[in-house]
């Protein structure tokens, strides 16, 4: 295979622990009640259009986008709207949610529920974007940026490459891996749809080399379309970051503070490509996704096809219960995921996995003084100096932090992972980003 491609700066290689890689995607039963947070995407939260007592069908629009960067939300179940009330979501705060009591499972008539692969793309470019927007599709890698916005490059900018992110560099998570194995053909059609929408002639699927079965499977499928190329990448965290993936695949560097379109790239996740396929070819909006439930002590690490709004507890039960030794329940992967405080927290569009970490694993190290070993600087994939930024953030030296490019931090956690002194570098970096971001916003307002 020769030397595998990867990004140049920094990066780490945590233990992969892909425990659920061989577990086929399994649909969990529809729960009795779903709680659907209205703020599931990056940007403005959606505006509910149903009220208490309304009857809804699976796939029916229940909340619409409230701005340019916002997304529609569709009912994942059929039943009655109980209420619209505050409920704790993955942010750890109570946010408005739609509560739906499930009665049966009656789908909207317009959705094609057959398994037949539809390869013919009849819609035009504009129609595809409109359909993607209407279907409420957001980036399913975890950032939940509305996909339709990515499909509309700003005037004067032209996309050259569509990069499909099948990297899944987070340890433990396998949802994208299983999608590639089981829904490969659909993903290829989804990529063709995205290419048509973006008017690009070249697509690259980037997959890390620890998923050789997926690489082989997709390479085989992509033979039918010479525009699509699959490339194997060396295993390295955080290769799944947009900027790192572009660097690895094309050796192009996205300028600081700019979007990938600046270097002629649009990056989409494989699961997003699948969701686009379903939306465009089957008229099925985004209301379910694949979630990995895993952990070293979990009896049955699994990949579940879950309706949005199902509680985390239901998924843990489906994976044979919460192990006694659980120390932390994390929504997402171990590197970038976020510990949840309540097991009732509903699954949202951005939940790629539920990780049950053991007490011994999840313990934080005792914070010791910095020994100036510069490991964090070597690990940073963005070429920043985490020890310096941390110090600046701690002391409130926001100007210095901004000058040292704190806003370029992608919060991957590589620095904290390598720190031998157990300093919570990422925590302070995030704090610095929040403060600097606020300062920049007030400056812009003025």
């Amino acid at each position: 295979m020769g030397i595998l491609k990867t990004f140049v700066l920094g990066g780490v290689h945590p233990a992969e622990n892909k425990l659920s890689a061989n577990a086929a995607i399994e649909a969990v039963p529809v729960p009795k009640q779903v709680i659907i947070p209205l703020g599931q995407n990056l940007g403005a939260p959606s505006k509910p259009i149903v009220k208490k007592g309304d009857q809804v069908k699976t796939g029916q629009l229940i909340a619409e986008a409230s701005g340019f960067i916002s997304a529609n939300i569709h009912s994942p179940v059929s039943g009655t709207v109980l209420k619209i009330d505050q409920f704790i979501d993955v942010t750890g705060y109570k946010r408005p949610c739609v509560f739906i009591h499930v009665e049966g499972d009656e789908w909207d008539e317009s959705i094609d529920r057959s398994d037949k692969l539809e390869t013919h793309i009849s819609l035009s470019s504009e129609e595809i974007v409109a359909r993607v927007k209407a279907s409420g599709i957001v980036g399913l890698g975890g950032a939940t940026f509305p996909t339709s916005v990515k499909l509309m490059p700003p005037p004067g900018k032209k996309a050259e490459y569509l990069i499909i992110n099948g990297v899944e560099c987070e340890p433990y998570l396998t949802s994208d891996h299983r999608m590639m194995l089981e829904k490969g053909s659909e993903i290829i059609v989804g990529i063709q749809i995205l290419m048509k929408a973006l008017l690009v002639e070249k697509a690259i699927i980037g997959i890390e080399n620890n998923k050789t079965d997926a690489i082989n499977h997709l390479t085989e499928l992509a033979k039918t379309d010479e525009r699509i190329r699959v490339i194997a990448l060396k295993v390295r965290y955080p290769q799944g970051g947009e900027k790192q993936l572009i660097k690895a695949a094309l050796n192009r560097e996205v300028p600081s503070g700019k979007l990938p379109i600046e270097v002629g790239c649009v990056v989409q996740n494989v699961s997003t490509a699948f969701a686009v396929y379903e939306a465009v070819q089957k008229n099925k909006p985004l209301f379910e996704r694949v979630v990995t439930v895993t952990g070293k002590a979990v009896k049955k690490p699994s990949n579940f096809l879950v309706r949005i709004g199902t509680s985390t507890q239901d998924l843990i039960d489906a994976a044979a219960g919460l192990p006694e030794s659980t120390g932390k329940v994390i929504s997402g992967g171990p590197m970038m995921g976020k510990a949840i405080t309540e097991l009732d927290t509903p699954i949202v569009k951005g939940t790629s996995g539920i990780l049950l970490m053991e007490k011994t694993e999840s313990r934080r190290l005792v914070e010791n003084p910095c020994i100036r070993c510069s490991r964090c600087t070597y690990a940073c994939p963005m070429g920043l100096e985490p020890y310096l930024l941390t110090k600046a953030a701690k002391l409130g030296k926001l100007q210095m932090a901004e000058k040292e490019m704190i806003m370029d931090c992608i919060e991957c956690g590589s620095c904290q992972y390598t720190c031998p002194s157990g300093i919570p570098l990422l925590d302070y970096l995030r704090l610095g980003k929040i403060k600097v971001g606020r300062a920049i916003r007030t400056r812009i307002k003025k």
Partner: protein
Amino acid sequence: MDNIILIAVSALGGLGLIAAVILYYIASKFKVFEDPKIDEVESALPSANCGGCGFPGCRAFAEATVVSAREIKSLDGLNCPVGGNEVMQAVGKILGLEVEAKDPMIAVIRCNGSTTHSPAKVKYEGANSCAFAHALYGGEGGCQFGCLGLADCVDACEFEAIHMNPETGLPEVNDKCTACNACVLACPRGIIELRKRGPKDKRIFVSCVNMEKGAPAKKNCKVACIGCSLCQKACAFDAITITSFLAYIDFNKCTLCRKCVEVCPTNAIHEVNFKPRKPKAETLTPEKSVSGKPLADKQLVSDSSKTGPENKKEELIETKE
């Protein structure tokens, strides 16, 4: 030999003389006029350089007062919270202006969600900073409005006026507080408020900022304000307003009658530096205390030296500063 010394001395002396003349000329030619009053005012200020006045240090504040005195002939809007009325009077005297006396203020912690009232459900192990924890999650006790207990306010205080109570996990303000506003700005949840110190340091405030409905608020914290509006009904002076299920006492209208404290079903309203009440006060039903005369209250305050009933005792210990 003599000659060398002579040359050296005269050369250096001459150089020094020339330099002195140049320096004198430049100093007088390019002299920047500075009002001598600025120095005077600065020396009257506490030199804490805390920034509580809104200016970057005492010198900047002194300059601002002199400019204000010259241009608008008043010191409106300028106040040194640290020095208080005394310092402002002195400043006024230097500038020849009358300064209105302001009520002394103090920072109050409007959260009582201690480890006993709002027990921890999850454990936080991240960076030791309220600002960060606030961005991350609701809080160990589950209340997303309450104190996170990571002492950002203590770090912000320049006067050692706030410290954390390890038993309750909450910050406490002592008498050193100068109302400089630093802790108010440091708290990411807006729990700390500057309130009137009150006569003999007596004050009453709602020690809660939870804007949730009663039931969910009470679920996470035993002493949360549930917005029941009993205190609003009990208040004869319209001092209490309720917005989003949270009572707020206007300290300008409050007469410290303590009726609201009596009726509060969750003990969310705190009284500070009052003498403990007679045990009898507890037997008063809400209706009675609503219609009770102010006189009865005064009596209760004056002739009670015993400790109050059980449930009030705990509160008094906590609020004692």
